């Protein structure tokens, strides 16, 4: 069983200013399940893009069947038998199962008429579905299938091209427990049939069940490899963490004040069977950590009134507030700096001035007519105090850099009376200098008595900036840490749903 299918040697990938992968080596054997783990941003996705032929490595060699390649193309990767089962499924919901399996390489009949040969496609797909133990037919429309069933379609698609290596990227993140078990059985079957599987997941328990070997990535490097016998949660987490965290912490200038925002029994539509209890005090920055998909963004959207709240309540200084829309939230002084600033934070084709005053326009109007002078004054004052670098406040937001765009979003809220501000990934895609400025702005707000919740997937940021950290796992708060117990290890344990180790467990676990 030891024949090598695929080897990556010394793969390096740099983007301007960022080293995404640094001298990564990886071997995949026939019929083995290779677990690939690492924190958000460790380089897993980049590595997969290189294997899929989407990204070209800056240096290094990809060896397939003893032949060296400098880079793969998408077609080359397919020819080499590499197939993906994506995290976000790439299926056409309006087509049936067989059409999806054969998309782009349809079976034809009728010669020059190029008609689809549906019968041949169905006949070819049926045995694949049977092999996977699927409970649906080749002519079922994909829109009727559950996520787990759609995954089976993706796997069938991989098998239909005789894939030898199937890469599964977070395949179980949206599956129920029984669906997960079923998928793990399919993985075992595929392995028995000689197919190699690269299994990327945050769920270490699944790795323990199915992996023959685990490779750990951190900061774009392979930091360790564990054989089946060496696998344990502790060993894996220890390898995933351990980088030097720069100190970003700006201590509060004032004592935490009484009161704040209490969220009690909040149920979001993303996790209808979980509820969230959380408090943010005035004057503190509460970090909200967790893995991608843990439900943090839908928590923020629900508090802000974008998504429907299924249950629970939000209290501000002890008094319940009714929030059914962003308008309600804004009236209470609860603001959201959204994750996707280009789509939800800004109207890109509007000037800085109009973006800053958009949420507070009635304040700049008399008899419903806008007073541009008042707008310009406020916009200029905000641009100056936040250090927005632009030729003037009439500059279109679209021409600004990411950091300056984010400052415009902030300016919109700072020009009003914030009481609670939720930041969703406030520094994503922003250069280091602007990051530091945004941290200072957040601290300044907190010192003025604003309650701040900061969702962040960047461990350095979450540990470096927060006064307390709440960690979410699959739709609920799995624990809250105070500064004394901040560590990558603790955050990560809570993020993957493990309890803190006994010595560290304390009363504020929820």
């Amino acid at each position, binding site marked *: 069983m030891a024949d090598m299918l695929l080897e990556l040697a010394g793969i390096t990938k740099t*983007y*301007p*200013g*960022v080293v995404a992968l640094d001298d990564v080596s990886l071997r995949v054997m026939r019929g083995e399940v290779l677990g690939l783990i690492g924190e958000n941003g460790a380089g897993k996705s980049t590595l997969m893009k290189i294997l899929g032929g989407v990204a070209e490595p800056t240096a290094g060699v990809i060896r397939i069947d003893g032949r060296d390649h400098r880079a793969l193309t998408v077609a080359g990767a397919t020819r080499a038998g590499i197939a993906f089962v994506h995290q976000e499924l790439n299926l056409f919901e309006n087509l049936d199962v067989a059409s999806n399996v054969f998309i782009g390489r349809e079976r034809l009949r009728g010669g020059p008429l190029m008609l689809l040969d549906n019968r041949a496609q169905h006949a070819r797909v049926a045995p694949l579905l049977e092999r996977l133990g699927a409970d649906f037919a080749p002519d079922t429309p994909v829109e009727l299938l559950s996520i787990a069933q759609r995954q089976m379609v993706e796997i069938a698609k991989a098998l239909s091209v005789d894939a030898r290596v199937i890469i599964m990227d977070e395949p179980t993140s949206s599956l129920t427990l029984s669906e997960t078990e079923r998928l793990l059985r399919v993985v075992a079957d595929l392995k028995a049939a000689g197919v190699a599987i690269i299994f990327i997941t945050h769920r270490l328990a699944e790795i323990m069940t199915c992996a023959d070997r685990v490779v750990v990535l951190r900061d774009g490097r392979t930091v360790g490899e564990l054989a089946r016998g060496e696998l344990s949660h502790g060993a894996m987490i220890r390898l995933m963490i351990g980088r030097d965290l720069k100190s970003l912490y700006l201590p509060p200038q004032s004592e935490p004040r009484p009161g704040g925002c209490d969220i009690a029994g909040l149920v979001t539509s993303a996790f209808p069977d979980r509820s969230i209890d959380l408090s943010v005090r005035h004057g503190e920055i509460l970090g909200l950590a967790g893995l991608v998909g843990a439900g943090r963004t839908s928590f923020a959207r629900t508090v*802000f009134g*974008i998504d429907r709240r299924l249950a629970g309540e939000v209290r501000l200084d002890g008094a319940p507030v009714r929030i059914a*829309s*962003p*308008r309600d*939230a*804004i*009236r209470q002084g609860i603001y*959201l700096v*959204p994750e996707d600033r280009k*789509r*939800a*934070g*800004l*109207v*890109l*084709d*509007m000037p800085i001035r*109009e973006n800053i005053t*958009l*949420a507070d*326009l*009635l304040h700049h*109007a008399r008899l*419903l*007519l*806008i007073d541009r002078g008042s707008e310009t004054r406020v916009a200029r004052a905000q641009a100056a105090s936040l250090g927005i670098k632009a030729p003037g406040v009439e500059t279109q937001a679209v*021409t600004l*850099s*990411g*950091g300056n765009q984010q400052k415009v979003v902030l300016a*919109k809220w700072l020009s009003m009376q914030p009481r609670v501000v939720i930041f969703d990934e406030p520094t994503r*895609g*922003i*250069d*280091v*200098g*602007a990051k530091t400025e945004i941290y200072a702005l957040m601290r300044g707000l907190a010192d003025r008595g604003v309650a701040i919740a900061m969702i962040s997937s960047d461990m350095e940021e979450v540990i470096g900036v927060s006064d307390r950290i709440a960690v979410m796992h699959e739709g609920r708060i799995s624990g809250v840490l105070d500064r004394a117990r901040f560590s990558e290890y603790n955050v990560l344990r809570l993020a993957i749903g493990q309890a803190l180790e006994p010595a560290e467990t304390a009363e504020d676990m929820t």
Partner: protein
Amino acid sequence: MRKELGLLLLLVVVSAITAAINPLFLSGVNLLDMANLIGLFGVFSIGEGLTIITGGIDLSIGSMFALLGVVFVDLLTEYQMAWPLALLIIIAGGVLLGGLQAFLITRLRMQPFIVTLCGLLIYRGAARYYTTDSTRGFGYGDEADTLRSLAAGHLYGIPNTFLFLVILAVVMGVVLHRSVYGRYLFAVGKNEEAARFSGIRTGLVIAGAYVLSGGLAGVSTVLLVFYTNSVSPSSFGNFYELYAIAAAVLGGCSLRGGEGSIIGIVLGTALLQVLQNLVNILGIPSSLNFAVMGTVILLGVLADQQLQARRKLAAAQASTARAAAAPALARQGQQT
């Protein structure tokens, strides 16, 4: 403003060429006739423009003219209703139909194209059924003389319709370009999601555009009825929604939403009427009427797009040059 200036220039050039070929173009009678038509068509084109700025469309106004038109004539002749009341009922009728469409679009989340297309079919059918396809007109009586002289009269020789359009354009110009509602319209048209995240009630803003479009269609009905003096339910107002869309698009409204101006829409309407007039006055076979209009719109929008693309390219080059000077920002730009 650049777009509007370009359009004005085009209008002047087309007019000058036409006048050079046939000086009758500039005769008082012809100019006043055109002014009247510009007034008639401009009113509902402004309403259409508002719906286009939200990223939607209103295909129903031509049929609204027919339905409201036959009702209006009947109210005045058959029921001998006092004209102020009839006028009010017709405008309210337009507001109601617009509001109904707005409800379907914003509350039930149906596509504007489909909702207003069905409006186009339904109102036309209702008008024809109600009249059993017979033409309604004023007799030789003096029904609503006051209203007639308001709607179809002149002031110092200038058609009232044109004067009305000027007043309406000023009012709507203030609403669109100076008021809170106008800013919200552009914000919703450009990026509905960001508008929602800023606490704007996007549904209400969009609904407002359809209600205004319906209300202005009601006003236009009255003006058009007194222009033609009779309403044939199967042809009255046919294609007028397309004139309105053409005027708005020519005037700088993007069908993607978030762009446009009142002055642009008025200039677009004027250009369309000049083109119609030019076909007549230059002796071009009137069967080519639509073809000429289509060609000019096509060329106009094409030229505008090319100019915009060039401007954008220049802006992009300028910003990469700036980014190259500041390496930290350059890295940022490429990552996102």
